[in-house]
């Protein structure tokens, strides 16, 4: 049994609430009511919740880019969403009157299905309601998503990985830094994953003129979203970065993760990019991912990078794969940006 459409005025219950990172684009003035039809919740819906007990996430990423420690009885504004994170939780966009889980510190609420053995239980939340406008229509992240602006940047480089913690974000930030120091106007974009400010802050720190992620396109998480929608999200993010010369686009997780794999298999999606680099923690992982990319996506990255570049022995082993192996330091060198930029121009000329 659940209570349907017992809309309540939002303002008194929202007072003092902490607005999470994924809600940063939301026009708060539109919020008037709370909808308590939790069974109807969908990914992207805005949710007011209250912290019941602290678990693995003891801090919330706020909309202004700061962390805020969480306390029992804190009111928080989150987005309902799914979560795919091998080293944390798998969760789905389901809410229940009995409570829900904080699936990601960026502000994603849902139902945890499984967790990594090293993880504590998630922080537990009571759901107060979904945010709605004066007419009772439930508000979602998509309501305040970016509009398409213009053509994509002239150069788009995708950053892929063998999995979580392969060094993708460091590689993406390195590329951003290298191209920015070379004099380019660079966009750092996180195209897939779960809403979190860590990646976009890394791009910003590296000198990106524009930082965007899929939450700017109206998604709390890209897990379990249709490929066509994810294509449009990336295309919209690139269009929003049209003032930039170069876009560095990071895709979450490994190349064989469900959505990433589906996207890479899709020629129309690959056509959004000029080239890719692959981040790996070791040479064998790189070899496996290269094989997958050749077999399923007819794709060869232009360089290897990632955690393995910290280990000279791993670099030597990876160099045998026949691709340049570039450390984060090498990627952040403007001379490397000049080289990669020229390589892309040459491919364009050949095409």
């Amino acid at each position: 049994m659940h209570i349907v459409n017992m809309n309540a005025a939002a303002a008194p219950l929202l007072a003092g609430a902490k607005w999470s990172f994924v809600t940063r684009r939301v026009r708060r003035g539109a919020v008037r009511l709370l909808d308590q039809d939790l069974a109807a919740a969908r990914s992207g819906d805005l949710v007011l919740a209250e912290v019941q007990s602290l678990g693995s996430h003891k801090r919330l990423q706020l909309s202004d880019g700061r962390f805020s420690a969480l306390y029992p009885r804190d009111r928080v504004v989150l987005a309902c969403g799914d979560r795919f994170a091998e080293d944390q939780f798998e969760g789905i966009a389901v809410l229940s009157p009995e409570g829900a889980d904080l699936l990601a510190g960026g502000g994603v609420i849902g139902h945890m299905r499984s967790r990594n053995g090293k993880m504590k239980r998630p922080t537990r939340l009571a759901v107060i309601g979904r945010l709605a406008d004066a007419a009772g229509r439930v508000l979602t992240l998509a309501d305040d998503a970016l509009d398409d602006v213009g053509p994509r940047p002239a150069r788009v480089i995708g950053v892929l990985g063998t999995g979580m913690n392969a060094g993708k974000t460091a590689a993406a930030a390195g590329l951003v830094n290298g191209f920015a120091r070379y004099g380019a106007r660079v966009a750092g974009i996180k195209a897939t994953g779960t809403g979190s400010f860590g990646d976009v802050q890394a791009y910003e720190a590296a000198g990106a003129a524009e930082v965007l992620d899929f939450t700017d396109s109206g998604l709390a998480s890209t897990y379990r979203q249709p490929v066509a929608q994810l294509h449009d999200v990336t295309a919209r993010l690139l269009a929003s970065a049209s003032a930039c010369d170069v876009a560095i686009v990071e895709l979450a997780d490994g190349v064989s993760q469900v959505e990433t794999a589906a996207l890479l298999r899709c020629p129309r999606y690959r056509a959004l990019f000029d080239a890719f680099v692959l981040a790996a923690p070791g040479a064998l992982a790189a070899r496996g991912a290269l094989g997958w990319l050749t077999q399923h996506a007819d794709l060869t990255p232009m360089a290897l990078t990632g955690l393995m570049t910290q280990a000279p022995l791993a670099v030597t082993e990876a160099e045998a794969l026949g691709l340049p192996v570039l450390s984060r330091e090498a990627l952040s060198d403007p001379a490397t940006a000049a080289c990669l930029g020229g390589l892309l121009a040459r491919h364009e000329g050949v095409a």
Partner: protein
Amino acid sequence: MAQILYRRGIPGVLPAAWLIQPEVAVRARPVVAVHGLKREAEVMARLLAGRADATGRTIALPIFDRASWPRFQRAACPQRSDWALLELLRVLRDEGQIGPGAPDLSGFSGGAQFAHRFAWLYPERVARLCLVAPGWWTFPDARRTHPLGVAGADGYRLRTNMARFLDRDIRVMVGALDTAQDENLRQDPDVMAQQGGNRVARARNWTAAALRAARGLGLSPQVRFALMENSAHSFGDCVANGARDQAFVPAALRETETLPLRQQEQIEEVA
């Protein structure tokens, strides 16, 4: 008459520079002229001032001071003189001292070492190259490891940039009397065996290698070699005896003008 200005630098960050502004400027790419290991940039500035007026071009002469950039000629050296020049060009553009567009880059001695390596690392950031009497070179040779050649991990960028680097007007010049094995001439066995025993032989050999590499890449090479009569290893000699300041600071190209193709002549000169 051209004005010679001194722009202060920031040690380790931004090289100081001499700037020569012509009395009547034309809309043209600037020229960057790089000193040798003795860092006689001021002497070069005085010798080149007339060319600024003759061509209407602004000339910038960075000063890679010994303390901050002791091995500037290597470009991607630990102190990264290449980054320092990128920054100087950015600042000079922001200040309106030079116009947009990739500069022509000229270098004497250690400055020519720097110039060819910088242009190779940043092919889009340099237009024409004029290389006068470098002590040793990085060759377009995939069998030798960097920095003598372009093999190995460190040579990745140069291998990738090869065609874009060689596809430009490159003037190689050396004094006919510049055959001494002086203290600034690298003389270890590898270099002697690969490049020759003096600057004249090395310049000839590099030109020939560059022509071969360019042709191998399907380019129409524009690499030209010239021996300057009565000139030793002295920038003053090169200007006074060889009138080579005209190559060092060439007349501006009109946007529509194409560079001459002189392959046969190039080959004969090198031979």
